[in-house]
């Protein structure tokens, strides 16, 4: 059974259609990623899915229930990690969990019984009585994750869960998130870190201008949308070199500043040629999700 099914979702603000006909489905126990540049409509899609905004057109079934008609009941079985920290600054770690559990109608005894396990899971064991001001950004993020699990949800929704965290903190969050699908928890996350999506998501969709423009497993998307090899060429005259040679030696190339990205299936002729060039350096690597993302959504800044 699907934990979430979205069909033909549309949402507009004034004359701007922020979500312009989005459909996707997430199976139970699957980790699904929604990728896209800023302003692509990811957060609005999440708000619609959770029944936090209306009116919308299209059909949403969250944990089997229609949204927005029965959104509140559906959220009973959903945990949410929002983009912006909204822990209660006046409460300790344990009080944050206790008070949040009450919003689900859980009895205090039942919540207290879960707190130790959740803190253990979030790497916060022994911190139950710590105050918010004594927690690092990574610890707060993990506490928000623990808070989202207080109701033992079927679906966990995370909006950019590791934005602003250092590598150590990100890896710890990833480890925790990887463990969830194995316990049967469905995960829906938005991110613009491609390595995050590649590591965590069984399946993902790339969103831009309110539409899903590609969908599949990370491996699928790379195979389907982009050449398997990438050679990045650097140097003051990289652009001049590219004008003369790049189209001959690669199947597709892009120039940004002093870097040329060459996409190709067989890299041997290009590498042999580059080894003879003075003043150019290069990096040869397999194509990744970021290449797909930039190909599909372009390189222009989105502010």
């Amino acid at each position: 059974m699907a934990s979430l099914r979205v069909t033909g979702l549309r949402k507009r603000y004034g004359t701007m259609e922020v979500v312009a006909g989005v459909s996707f489905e997430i199976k139970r126990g699957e980790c699904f990623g929604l990728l896209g540049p800023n302003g692509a409509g990811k957060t609005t899609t999440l708000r619609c899915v959770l029944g936090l905004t209306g009116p919308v057109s299209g059909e949403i079934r969250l944990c089997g229930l229609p949204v927005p008609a029965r959104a509140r009941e559906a959220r009973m079985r959903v945990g949410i990690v929002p983009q912006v920290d909204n822990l209660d600054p006046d409460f300790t770690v344990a009080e944050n969990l206790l008070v949040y559990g009450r919003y689900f109608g859980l009895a205090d005894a039942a919540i207290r019984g879960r707190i130790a396990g959740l803190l253990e899971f979030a790497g916060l064991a022994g911190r139950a009585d710590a105050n918010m001001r004594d927690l690092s950004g990574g610890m707060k993020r993990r506490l928000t994750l623990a808070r989202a699990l207080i109701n033992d949800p079927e679906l966990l929704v995370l909006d950019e869960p590791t934005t602003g965290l250092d590598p150590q903190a990100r890896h710890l969050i990833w480890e925790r998130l990887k463990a969830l699908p194995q316990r049967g928890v469905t995960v829906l996350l938005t991110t613009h870190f491609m390595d995050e999506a590649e590591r965590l998501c069984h399946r993902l969709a790339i969103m831009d201008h309110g539409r899903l423009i590609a969908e599949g497993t990370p491996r699928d998307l790379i195979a389907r949308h982009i050449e398997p090899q990438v050679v990045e060429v650097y140097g003051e005259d990289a652009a001049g070199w590219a004008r003369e040679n790049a189209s001959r030696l690669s199947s597709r190339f892009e120039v940004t500043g002093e870097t040329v990205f060459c996409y190709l299936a067989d890299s041997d002729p290009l590498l042999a040629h580059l080894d003879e060039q003075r003043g150019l350096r290069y990096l040869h690597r397999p194509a990744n999700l970021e290449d797909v993302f930039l190909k599909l959504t372009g390189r222009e800044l989105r502010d």
Partner: protein
Amino acid sequence: MNAAALLPSLNLRFVAIWRRNFLVWRKLAIPSVLGNLADPMIYMLGLGYGLGRLLPEVGGVSYISFIAAGTVCYSTMNSATFEALYSGFSRMHVQRTWDAIMNAPVDLDDVLLGELVWAASKSFLSGMAILLVAWIIGLIASPLALWVLPLVFLTGLTFAAMGLIVTALAPSYDFFLYYFTLFVTPMGLLSGVFFPGDQLPAVLQTVAAVLPLSHAVDLVRPLLLGHRPEAVVAHLAILTAYLVVSYPIAVALTRRRLLK
């Protein structure tokens, strides 16, 4: 959307929000109690005894007896308004507490009802503290004064509901100064808190007659002085009308702000 959906929903889920605010208050109770109670108390005692010495009688009683009733109402109004404005705005906009709550199976209407009842509860405490001091210094004439308890709670609900409208419209904390300067403070002066309303020019008396605070004062003062207020039903009806009109407006405006 049908008409019923436009009205606020009233559900017991609000209790969890009330308990959240109560837990914060309990942790910060000492500074909060001092701020909430010391200020009106100083006004009541300072003006009551200081200014009172210069005045023979006000409204047929000593000035301290006169101002005690006004202070109960004024303090209730201020406390409910502060909570609905500054604390409500913190939780809505700055700390994003409401966002966190609405991610749980709780609706915005539940959050607002929690805030309304919480602000009234906190203001009830402020009113009660003044009442207690008034009783200790012998300003309360009879058990009739017990009727002030539900009245203070109603007054708190009314001003909390009005305050939530302002919060729903506020771009920042600065906005609240307008509400205090243009509405709350003048109302305090026009509503018979510090001096009898009949001292005012006729035009201002007419204005005062439609202000909610003057109706609270007109009910509470006689009860503290030991006699039955006049026109009880009319006063109660006006206070209640402010509540039942303001609250749905506050809910509609907040929905428009947060659920768009």
